[in-house]
């Protein structure tokens, strides 16, 4: 395979790129797959890289239990996206009704979510490692590791079109194999993987990278 990997952050654009044939595969959360298919697209998941939520609820330091989130405002990337759904599902599992007990608002990407916490616009948000470690350094509390709830959800599904599977099956098979080999590499090459995470997230923080590796490695199939 001679693959080109490109980053597209908005799910609507990702789906358009897939449906117009600009890309053959997307790595997307279940929400993107489900909403596009319900809208009539022939999108289908052929493999998955991350079948569980692994983010943490990070809060202001004076909040010491999930119960204390009642009456507070939480920040997610955008309403209706994976971070929004993760937070709502987790809160429900933890006995907090996200609709009645809290207010959830869109505060943007990770840096903006942290800024909203720092300005007390929100009192809790959702972050993944190694950013949880960064947040702790800034004085926020790592309130709850959602990974421990083991909520099944394909955060990183490998999605293509049924048309592609039908017309180019050997190619699709190669891609599925490649993803399986990548997971094997991650599980058997810890230091190289940590270096790759650090390169992509632009961090050299050893403890943060270790925590990120542990969290992802435990969740990868």
């Amino acid at each position, binding site marked *: 395979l001679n693959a080109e990997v490109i980053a597209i952050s908005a799910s609507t654009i990702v789906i358009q790129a897939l449906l117009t044939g600009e890309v053959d595969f997307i790595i997307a959360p279940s929400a993107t797959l489900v909403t596009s298919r319900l809208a009539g697209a022939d999108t289908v998941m052929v493999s998955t890289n991350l079948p569980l939520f692994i983010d943490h609820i990070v809060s202001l330091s004076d909040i010491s239990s999930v119960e204390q989130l009642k009456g507070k405002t939480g920040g997610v990337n955008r309403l209706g996206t994976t971070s929004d759904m993760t937070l709502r599902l987790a809160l429900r599992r933890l006995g907090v009704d996200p609709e009645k007990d809290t207010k959830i608002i869109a505060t943007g990407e990770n840096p903006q979510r942290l800024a909203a916490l720092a300005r007390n616009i929100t009192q809790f948000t959702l972050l993944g490692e190694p950013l949880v470690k960064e947040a702790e350094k800034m004085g926020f509390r790592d309130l709850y590791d959602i990974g421990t709830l083991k909520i099944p959800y394909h955060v990183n599904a490998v999605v293509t079109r049924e048309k592609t599977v039908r017309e180019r099956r050997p190619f699709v098979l190669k891609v*599925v194999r490649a993803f399986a080999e990548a997971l094997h590499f991650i599980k058997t090459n810890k230091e190289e993987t940590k270096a790759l995470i650090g390169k992509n997230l632009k961090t050299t923080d050893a403890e943060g990278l270790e925590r990120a590796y542990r969290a992802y490695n435990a969740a990868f199939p």
Partner: protein
Amino acid sequence: VKNLLDDIAPRTPKAATADPKSFVDMTLVQELEAAGFFKQLYKR
């Protein structure tokens, strides 16, 4: 997929009747498994 369909079903009627299995094509992974690919990979 079922988690998500259940979550959006109150606001999206189509989700209530959708079959979660229709969103996933397991035949490719099954084909690799039948060919012994995963056993070989994790023997390395």
